[in-house]
């Protein structure tokens, strides 16, 4: 199996799906001539032409609105938003149209639309470019929310997202585009809504996704030195949410900590905790704890940015509170 970056894995997924299905087209700012702000759409304009790879003006609401209409009319658009924060500009389109159209028309139309957007902190891009907003989209029923962490998942999940008849928010972490990993060539599908155990352990379950998977793996190594064997569950997405895997892991470890990069207050970690309380209370040996980002706009300053998001030491320290 070839070792490639997340960026290349995503590119492979787009290329293969566009080859497979002629109703798929890509639209967004700088996706064509410039080949994407993060070069995910590299080579696609040259291969598929400007009818299937559309450069658009800076108008997120327009991009999503057009894509929504095209999807309702039978095409399979893939819209790229330059960062997830800009999705907020298109929030009316996403929440009021993309998410609800199928319901409001009694299932007579589907919206097979994929919206890709990079996000996440760590690159000193300031508060307007660095947030992780997966919880915001997961709050809205009707939207699938997918958040990959490793190249193989990035490819497999993106292919499944494109094939889904539901609208999917596919959120990529800017800090992971360069991360390398083994990725199967050709047809490689990862179903939506299945969490993956990235590290097996018996003492505590770390529930996480995206770049925090790596932070949790590092924390697990630190904890191993203290004699604590941590299991790392990568949710890989929030809707559908795979509580089955989380609860199964909990039955084994009896302790859980959620780790998210985004703001702790009202974040998805709280949702996981609530569901564990409802469905796994009797399996617990300790309260479920949360680790999350500071409740502040993401600082530009490098040191402040670093301290605003969880690191392995903070995760390990929180875990130690359970023992």
């Amino acid at each position, binding site marked *: 199996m070839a070792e490639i970056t997340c960026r290349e894995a995503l590119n492979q997924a787009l290329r293969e799906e566009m080859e497979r299905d002629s109703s798929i087209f890509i639209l967004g700012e700088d996706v064509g001539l410039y080949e994407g702000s993060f070069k995910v759409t590299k080579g696609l304009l040259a291969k598929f032409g400007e009818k299937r790879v559309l450069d658009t003006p800076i108008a997120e609401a327009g991009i999503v609105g057009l894509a929504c209409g095209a999807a309702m009319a039978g095409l399979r658009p893939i819209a790229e938003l330059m960062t997830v924060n800009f999705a907020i500009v298109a929030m009316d389109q996403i929440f009021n149209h993309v998410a609800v159209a199928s319901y409001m028309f009694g299932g007579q139309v589907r919206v097979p639309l994929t919206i890709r957007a990079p996000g996440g902190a760590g690159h000193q891009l300031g508060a307007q470019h660095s947030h992780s907003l997966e919880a915001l989209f997961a709050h809205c029923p009707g939207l699938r929310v997918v958040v990959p962490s490793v190249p193989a998942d990035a490819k497999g999940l993106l292919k499944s997202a494109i094939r889904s008849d539901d609208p999917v928010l596919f959120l990529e972490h800017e800090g992971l585009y360069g991360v390398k990993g083994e990725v199967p060539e050709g047809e490689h599908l990862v179903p939506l809504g299945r969490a993956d155990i990235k590290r097996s352990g018996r003492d505590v379950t770390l529930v996480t996704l995206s770049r925090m998977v790596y932070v949790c793996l590092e924390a697990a190594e630190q904890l191993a*030195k*203290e*004699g*604590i064997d941590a299991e790392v569950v990568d949710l890989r997405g929030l809707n559908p949410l795979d509580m089955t895997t989380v609860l199964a892991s909990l039955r084994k470890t*009896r302790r859980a900590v959620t780790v998210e990069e985004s703001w702790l207050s009202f974040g998805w970690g709280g949702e996981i905790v609530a569901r564990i309380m409802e469905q796994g*209370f*009797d*399996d*617990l*040996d*300790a309260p479920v704890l949360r680790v999350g980002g500071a409740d502040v706009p993401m600082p530009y300053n490098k040191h402040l940015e670093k301290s605003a998001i969880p690191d392995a030491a903070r995760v390990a*320290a929180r875990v*130690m*509170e*359970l*023992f």
Partner: protein
Amino acid sequence: MATEITMPKLSDTMEEGTILKWHVAEGDRIARGDIIAEVETDKAAMEMEAFEDGTVAAIKVAEGETVPVGTLIAILDVAAAKQEKKDKEEKQEKKDKEEKQETEKEEKEEKKGTARAPAAAKTPVKPEAAEEEPQPAAQGVAPASRKEEAMTGARPGGQTPPASPAARRLAREKNVDLARVRGSGPGGRILVADIEQAEAGAVKGPATASSAAAPTSGKSVKIRRIVARKMVEAWETIPHFYVTVAVDMTDVIRFRKDLKVSINDFIVAATIRSLQEHSWVNSHHLDGEAVEQARINIAMAVATDRGLYNPVLKDCAAFSLRDISRKSQSLAEKAHLGKLTPEEMQDGTFTISNMGMLGVESFSAIITPPQVAALAVGTARGELVVDEHGESTIAPILRLTLSADHRALDGADAAEFLATLKSYLEAPVVLIACGSAEEEA
């Protein structure tokens, strides 16, 4: 169920005790807190309290007899007392429930035909059951208390130790009494593993007051384990005594601002000088004998997020104040980063534990064996003092407590050492002058 009462350790130096008088006889019913005996230790006669309710089943040591600490002196039957208490509580509960049902019924009758009374909906007894199938009161109680048990794992009315939900379920399934299990989780919480251990018969004897004694720290398990082992060894083998002095820190605080060193640096410097003058305090007690140490190695207690570390300022007899400041700062930083090497934590000859920055007024430290003393440093607080002219003034007063090993040091040794230490800190110019002279040399 029987509980053993053993000769308690009533003072630090106590090894054996004499039963002067029994206040109870076999067959007597006693309650927790009752004075059951008078015990003479090496220091004084003291009263001994009962820790549990029960009936005195047997007295094993006669009045006037002397036995070592830990010897079985009496047996207490606690089962009867527990049962009695339980019965009493159940009776009370039953009474409460009956009253509640009565009130409910009255309310219902009152509001019949109108909306359901909100108060009735809130009561634990199902309103439907009370309404549709009026049951004899005694039967009505049982399901309610079972429900309570299922929800909390608690025996009705009983004080249960904290237990995790998983442990509670397992205890229910395996019929294990939570009150008899020692919790190993944070705050003494009983975990699944504890139930499994208890069920396997690994827990022997009643775990009285176990939850309070269980580890409560969320810090590093490994560090905690090491500290625990060391402290038990120290506490059990070293006969500690404590001497405290109050030191006027006016001059130290004045100098400190100009020199940009910490109060702790001054204390370390003064301690080093005092140890040079009272070298007996800088000893190791090994194989039943105290031996003066040639070098002065000051171990500093540093509390970090991970736990307690004791980095050692080695061979520091000739250190200037600035040397001390620089080196102790670097050691403390390493401690916080968890980067201390084993060598950097070995061979201390004297320990200084400073809790001043935590606002602690005064405390006493446990000696690290084989050292024979440890200095506990509190915080400097403004206090009213009367000067030599009889004028009252406010001065920053610091309390230093020396913990001393009575095998190696006597009260006078400790007092003299502290007097020297106090004199250095109240005239710190000596510490600065000595330091700079050596620095120049």
